[in-house]
């Protein structure tokens, strides 16, 4: 939406472009393009995080008093758009976008001092302990128990779909501290050290062959009471705040628009005239119209955030549209690539020296694993079905 930019905003955009040109090395761009997922491996992710931290731009989603940049919504939007255009590795949301803002909002001064800076410096890597084998979309039914024992909780149970648990130093998790009240009321939000005997991590391999999520077994694992965020029983409130944060406050449209533009170029590079096929061109145009609409919908929402309103259920709309579109782009990409799109290399990562030579093109090598991994978009972080129910109940009053 360059159409709406002020001179100051244009200047800011040029700053960002300049920084990216100077400080985002090619091997990180290659790493990002060679990552068939929204979660990048630490080897490339952390190098980029440190560069942004050095520049002072890392905590742009945090309040200024916790190291935030104080950017306007439009600035945040421009920053994320330029990063997407430049193939910057995605920043791990777990610390920066999920637990960071929670600690900043609900944490004690001690907790802020203890954890926030180490998130920025990447000394601590985090994972999220929400879902359980029996509680996926239905968080309130979680079974993991935390029993108070002096200044500690003894935690028993388990978590699943735990992204990057195999890298994490800490897990923020929901545990039931009071089994006798109604489900939502008995839950607390605990920070739990992953480097202890009571914690066991089992890899779960995805359809595409990627190891991204895990099952985490908690057997008499210890969480210190001082590392509980908020009061006992306040976990549900904090969890909802975090989920709305996860869905809102950042822009999905820029990366969608970048993918759509590249898909047009990819089609033009194919033989057989797919780029001129009305079936393809109109599907692509419809995706672009939808993404351009989403771009403005997001800016409208960012505008409300800027006026201090919480993200709220509106973010369900963005999650719904963006995840659906992402999958439509994945499918159209496979259609464009034809036979080349069928390849699915077993090797990981798909960048660097171990990466096999692609068949046809690098884009073709990435298409199938990206398509397969992105099926998770409509499931995790609240499935599409859950998002629609949220909209119906809280926005439409049904």
């Amino acid at each position, binding site marked *: 939406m360059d159409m709406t930019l002020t001179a100051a905003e244009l200047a800011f955009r040029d700053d960002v472009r300049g920084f990216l040109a100077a400080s985002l090395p090619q091997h990180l761009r290659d790493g990002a393009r060679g990552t068939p997922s929204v979660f990048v491996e630490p080897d490339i992710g952390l190098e980029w995080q440190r560069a942004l931290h050095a520049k002072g731009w890392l905590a742009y989603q945090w309040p200024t008093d916790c190291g935030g940049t104080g950017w306007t919504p439009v600035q945040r939007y421009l920053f994320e758009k330029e990063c997407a255009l430049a193939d910057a590795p995605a920043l791990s949301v777990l610390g920066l976008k999920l637990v960071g803002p929670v600690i900043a909002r609900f944490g004690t001064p001690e907790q802020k001092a203890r954890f926030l800076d180490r998130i920025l410096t990447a000394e601590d890597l985090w994972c999220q302990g929400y879902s359980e084998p029996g509680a996926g979309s239905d968080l309130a039914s979680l079974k993991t128990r935390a029993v108070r024992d002096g200044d500690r909780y003894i935690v028993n149970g388990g978590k699943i779909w735990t992204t990057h648990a195999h890298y994490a130093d800490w897990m923020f998790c929901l545990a039931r501290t009071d089994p006798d009240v109604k489900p939502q009321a008995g839950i607390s939000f605990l920070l739990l050290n992953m480097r202890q005997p009571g914690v066991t991590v089992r890899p779960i391999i995805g359809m595409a062959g990627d190891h991204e999520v895990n099952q985490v077994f908690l057997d008499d694992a210890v969480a210190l009471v001082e590392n509980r965020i908020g009061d006992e029983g306040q976990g549900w409130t904090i969890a909802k705040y975090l989920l709305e944060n996860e869905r809102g406050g950042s822009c999905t449209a820029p990366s969608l628009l970048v993918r759509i533009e590249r898909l047009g170029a990819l089609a033009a590079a194919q033989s057989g005239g797919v780029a001129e096929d009305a079936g393809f061109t*109109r599907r692509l*145009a*419809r995706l672009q119209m939808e993404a351009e609409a989403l771009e403005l919908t997001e800016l409208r929402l960012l505008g409300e955030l800027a006026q201090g309103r919480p993200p709220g259920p509106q973010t369900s709309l963005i999650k719904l549209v963006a995840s659906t579109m992402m999958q439509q782009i994945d499918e159209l990409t496979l259609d464009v690539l034809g036979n080349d799109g069928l390849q699915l290399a077993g090797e990981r990562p798909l960048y660097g020296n171990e990466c096999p030579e692609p068949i046809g093109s690098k884009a073709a090598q990435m298409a199938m694993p990206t398509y397969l991994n992105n099926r998770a978009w409509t499931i995790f972080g609240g499935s599409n079905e859950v998002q629609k129910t949220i909209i119906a109940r809280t926005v439409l009053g*049904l």
Partner: protein
Amino acid sequence: SEDQAMLKAAVERCVAAGGDAGAGDLGHRRAARATAAGFSAASWARLAESGVLAMPVSAAHGGMADDRMALLLAMEAVGRALVPEPVLDVAVIAGTLLDVAGSPAQQETVLVPMLVGRLMVSLAHAERAARFDLGHVETSLSQRGNVMTIDGAKTAVMAGGAADRFIVSARCNAGICFWLVRADAPGVERRSYRLADGSVAAELMLRGVTVTHADRLAGGLDSLDRVVAVARAAAAAEMLGVMTLLFDATLDYVKTRVQFGKPIGSFQVIQHRMADAYVLVEQARSQVVRAGLAPSADFPRAAAGAKAFVAEAALSVAHTAVQLHGGMGITDELVIGHGLKRLRVLALTFGDVAAAIDDYRRAA
């Protein structure tokens, strides 16, 4: 902006004075549709007085053509009230064309009377053989000595049933030009017919219709591009208004209609379908805002995209509205059906969805 909000309110008052379809009062619409013209002369006069008709034209003629967002807000209100008067076809399309391409004399003798509601003008451009190719005109101008005559056939002349003047596109040596033709001029045969929304369009047979240089608009086919962009954006805004009307009516209905012992809005399938419709409404609104904000250079593309997107979204929501209203939805007794029929007509403003998408694509 504040002015825009005030303006929108003014338009709403003005259109509501003609019976508020938004509140389910279809009396005005029915009465207007029952006339031969297909709309109410009284309401048209009121729209003229309120300045709504002048909005699309430049300030020189009392309009605010520069404030595109204001026009789109007004058109949204027009849609939401299911206004039967031909605001889009006459004020926006004919008005803009005369504003950008008319000679001072034509603006004096035709545009100004039109803006005050004393003269009805319709664009006669479409031809059946052209489908939606705006550059395909077979109607031609021939010159013998200093007598110029137009021969050809036009179709889908919107609001043409009541037009006093037609702006006729015709091919001549200079390319495609526009000519002002009196509806009662010799050689003009008008056949009026009803459209789905109850409006009265016309087909024209033109046989040796004499015109003079004074009848020729200054601008040629290129000036139509500007008209097409404005018309598509305005149509998108009106469709957005109709869409929100139908969405809100349906939301109310599913909250109150009881089946199987509870409001149907408590059924998960209905809830999710309404959520899908809500997403379409919000996305459609964003597309209209885009068209409003787009810089001039990008405006034709943004308008084409907005019109294509909103047309599909609005028809989808309208089909949902019919379905969820059950039997009542397919009657002529609710705004639902009237809205659906109006959307069908609006969706073809200067081409169908496919044509708009292709223009959007090529402009990229």
